[in-house]
Structures are given as C-alpha cells and as structure tokens.
C-alpha cells in the first residue's frame, strides 16, 4: 500500500504525477527531452541506460516499464535488453555503450567514483562530451525517479505482461503527462 493516499489502481510514477501535476509536469518534460530529444545516443540506447540504472536501484516499476520501452524501441534486436540487464559487458551492444553503462553504474552507486579512466574508456570508443553528459544525467535522473516511486511505496505490478502496452506507448508517444482524472 502506498505511504500516502493516491488514486487506486494507478501504478508507479503515473500515480504520483496525477497526485501533484505541478511537479509532474517538469518531471515528464525532463524525461521527454532527455530520452526523446536530440542526443547522439539513440532513444533505445537511452532507455537501456535508464533501465540498467533502475535495475541497479532495484526499482521494479521503473525497470520493467523502461525495459518494455527499450524492447519496443530495439524492435527486432529486443533481446539485447535482457542480455544487458544480466551482464552488459558481454551483451551484444557497442563498446561505447558498454563504457557509458559503466559510467552510469558509478553515477548510480556514488557519482564521485566516476573516474578519468572511465571517461577515457568511453572516449576511446567514440563517446563525445554530449554522450557522457546525457549518460550522467539519465543515470542521475533515474536515481530520482526510482526513489520517488519506491520512497512512497507506489503500486508496482509484478506481471511483465502489464508493462508491454506501457512500453509500446512510451516508444510511440513518449512521455505525456497522464490526465489528472484517468478513466
């Protein structure tokens, strides 16, 4: 049961932004620009970073919903999502993305531990300042969303089937603030 009175039956972040849309609005705008706006990283890659950080934070709702979005965006290569979640260093993803996931992992655990060697490795594989910036901000942002969702004990379905349509919607429509009175 959530720690505060939220709309019944609405899961995760959606229940929170319906509860307080005036903070929900900039939160969704941030997710939209960060995960769907201009970036040298593809939308699928950015969703993968978000998923990885959410899994490291043990946030079921965020991990499942963003994994579903990443699978929808990877399309025929959707299996990379689960390979990455189980062991990204051996997953069929680019060396650049592996190096960026290592940076994201440091940001999640303790941002002060992002080292020059971590950054140099990413650059060796072609990462630009923008790639590194976006990776750090995505990782940081999901350290917020994960805590927001779990810190208030929001509804977090276990059944992966619940997240499939959510992932399709996020892939096709991006992050749009849910109506405050969902029907």
């Amino acid at each position, binding site marked *: 049961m959530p*720690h*505060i*009175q939220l709309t019944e039956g609405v899961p995760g972040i959606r229940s*929170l932004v319906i*509860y*307080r849309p*005036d*903070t929900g*609005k*900039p*939160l969704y*705008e*941030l997710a939209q*620009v*960060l995960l769907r*706006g*201009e970036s040298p990283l593809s939308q699928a890659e950015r969703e993968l970073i978000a998923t990885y950080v959410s899994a490291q*934070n*043990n*946030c079921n709702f965020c991990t499942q919903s963003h994994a579903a979005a990443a699978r929808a965006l990877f399309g025929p290569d959707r299996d990379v999502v689960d390979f990455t979640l189980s062991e990204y260093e051996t997953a069929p993803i680019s060396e650049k993305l592996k190096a960026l996931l290592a*940076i994201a992992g*440091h*940001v*999640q655990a*303790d*941002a*002060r*531990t*992002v*080292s*020059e060697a971590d*950054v140099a490795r990413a650059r060796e594989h072609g990462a630009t*300042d923008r790639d*590194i*910036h976006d990776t*750090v*901000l995505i*990782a*940081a*942002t999901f*350290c*917020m*969303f*994960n*805590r*927001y*969702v*779990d*810190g*208030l*004990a929001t509804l977090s379905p276990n059944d992966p089937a619940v997240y499939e349509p959510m992932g399709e919607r996020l892939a096709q429509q991006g992050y749009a603030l849910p109506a405050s009175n969902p029907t």
Partner: protein
Amino acid sequence: MRCQQATLPDDSKTKPAGSGANRPVKNFHNRLVYIPHLFYGWGYIEHETNQTMAHIQLPEGLPGIRGPMAFSPETTKPLNLLVDQLLWSADNTLSQGERELIATYVSSENDCQYCQTIHGAIASQWLGDTDWSLVQQVKQNPETAPISEKMKALLAIAGSVQKGGKHVTPEQIERAKSVGATDKEIHDTVLIAAAFCMFNRYVDGLATWMPDDPSFFRQRAVLVCENGYSAANPKPV
C-alpha cells in the same frame, strides 16, 4: 582560483572513505596564486590546489550545476521549473527554508559539497540563520537540532530516501503523521530528497568545480531567494 577544493566551514562529521577530499582527481602541484584578499590586500596566498577538472568541456566560469546547466539548456529548463515548484514556490505548507533544509541535508548525506553549500546558504537566508549554525546542526544530526518534531520526522524520511526508496519504513511515515505531517508534506519530502539524489549526482558525476569563497554562496543565496531558480539561471549568452 578555479577548480579549488572548498575550504568552507564544514561540519565535522566523519565522511566515508572516498569522500570529497579523497576523490580521485587530477592533482596539480601546490602552487602560489595571486589573489586579492579582503583583509590583506593583494598578495600571495598559498592555496591547496587539489584541482579537479570537469569530465567534459563545460562553459567557463560557472560553478557546480551551472556548468552542465549551461551546456544543456534543453534539460535545464524542466530542472529549474522543478526546483522552482518544489523549493521556491510560496504555495506550500512547508516553508521555503524548511524545504531547503531537506535539500541541504540530503546533499550532505550524499557528500556533495557544492549542493550542500549553496542550498545550506539558501536555507540560512530564508531562516535568518546568519552564521549558518542551524544548517550545520541539521547536517550533523537532525534529531538534536533546534527544529520542529515534524521536521525531524520528515528529515528521517529524507535520509532513508537518500539510501534508497525502499528504506522508507511505515514506522517513519507513522511518526511523521503523528506529529502533524500531511500526505502532501510527506510527498514533497520524498520528492525533494529524490530530486537531490539526482542533482548531487549530476554535479559530482561530471566532476564540476566550486568556488572556495563563502561570500559567493551568500550572494547567490540572496539572488535565488528573491528571484527563484529559473530567473537566477538565465540562458547563457
């Protein structure tokens, strides 16, 4: 003067290994820098220049979060709107000073020097804490600080959020409600704490620099209190 480790008045709480002073940084040699000093006029003052350079090329001259914010104006807009709504808006049953205390406490727990100093200065500005002593006491131990029982209970929740969302217990929520905290106050506490787990990581994950002069933070605090965050961070020219 750039890139120096802070020598600000700081709490004496023991920091974990790998904290600010011990972080892996580009170590420049200790050097003499020629700077104006308020009391001694122009002169050589030896500085510990444990310099850190940011991990990416950021616009020069902007400390802490303001470097990455100028680098990425598209993401900065919603970030500033978020803190304006969450911390600066007067439309809240928690005062601006109380909300800034939550931000400061979480930043201190994350050992983010820039964030805890600027938000500590802003909290002090709102609360009339001219010598920053209240903020220091809250950072050291909220339970013994001269703040309301409600604020102590909310800071306990914020401290759990800093460790991870699942660390918040029903007992902590019960305690907060028993001393008068509303659902919205609990919500805002959790979101402020979560948001600063983001801001702190953004600032430290890119290894930004900070000024070592407390007056910089005092002046900046006045500006933010008067105008809000969006207005205090205009688009770079």
